[in-house]
């Protein structure tokens, strides 16, 4: 049966609490994983492992959080994501709204896109497809 976004949020919050050692009330849809919840690089993998177990799905590496993008000189120049990099980001992360980020695509702002809402939207899409299959 298809899960509601609220049900998904509950599961995501539990994963984040366990992976990042934060309290439940710190986690809201708008929370940034890095700025608000203190996630570091390995935490993203930890979060993925826990989401996979909680939701019984396989999340291909790089599907939820992009990998190796910032090491490609075609995608990053002078501390900004290039147009080619943005295209690649949108291709990889079709579940993310880049409108705000595009206004000033600084690499240092990239972590802002990784929010709890982004994970919930991704899982909603993913679990809906699974439920319909």
């Amino acid at each position, binding site marked *: 049966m298809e899960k509601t976004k609220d049900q998904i949020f509950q599961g995501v919050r539990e994963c984040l609490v*366990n992976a990042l050692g934060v309290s439940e009330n710190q986690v809201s849809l708008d929370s940034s994983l890095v700025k608000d919840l203190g996630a*570091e690089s*390995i*935490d993203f*993998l*930890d979060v993925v*492992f*826990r989401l996979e*177990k909680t939701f019984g799905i396989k999340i291909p590496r790089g599907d939820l959080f992009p990998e190796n993008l910032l090491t490609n000189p075609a995608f990053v120049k002078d501390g900004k994501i290039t147009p080619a990099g943005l295209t690649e980001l949108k291709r990889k992360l079709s579940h993310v709204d880049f409108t705000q980020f595009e206004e000033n695509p600084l690499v240092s702002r990239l972590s802002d896109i990784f929010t709890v809402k982004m994970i919930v939207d991704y899982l909603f899409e993913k679990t809906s497809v699974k439920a319909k299959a």
Partner: protein
Amino acid sequence: MQSVADLKVSTNGRKRLDGKVAIISGGSRGIGDAIVRKFAAEGATVVFTYNKNKESAEKTVKELRGLNAQVECLPCSIQDSKSVQDVIDKTIEKFGRVDILVNNAGIIRDGLFLTMDESAWKDVIDTNVGGTFLFSKAVCEHMVFQKKGRIINMSSVVSKIGSVGQANYVASKGAINAFTKALAAELASKGVTVNAVAPGLVATEMIENVKGLAGDLTKRIPCGRFADPEEVASLIAFLASDDAGYITGQVILIDGGLSLQSRR
């Protein structure tokens, strides 16, 4: 060699590894056998691998089970990722978790570098470094998920001081030291510690190959003797225990002072 009668609880009657599940690669002889016995004595559930020594491995299992230890042995080719994964899967299927990994399995194929062929280089690097990589990779996800784990890699004093005729082996152990530090940095925040133990000369069968030189070698060791395998096993048991939770990324020499390079 530790006898069955020596299978006893260590410090202060406390079993340091009670309730822990440990995987030890290459546990059928030498230092590996001592680690298996030490871990069993410390209360751990032990799964150890062997490559060719099935008979010896099964004998150890029978012996330790007779003492109420929970011990399993599994065949494993540590250069083969499927074979390694199989060990991890079977351990988790049976015991539900992996708390400790000891990357002990290793080989030597000694020879002067000028005559060392590519296969001798590749074999040693692929087994010693590749095996350490494959086992660590296979347990990492579980340990990160548990938010706790211990990985202990087997290095050697030669990674610090070099050794004639062992360019491949020395390179493999140097790589293991560097790998230990890198992995420790990555996993520290997840409660997983990664350390390496670098023994000097240990009284094992492997060292029998250079028995003729033993007299000369002993003179180079400030402590004046080879290590007993049990001494190395004790250090590893300590690093695997909760007592060592704040030690990570270290290469700990246990060499009787050999690396001091002073003569007696």
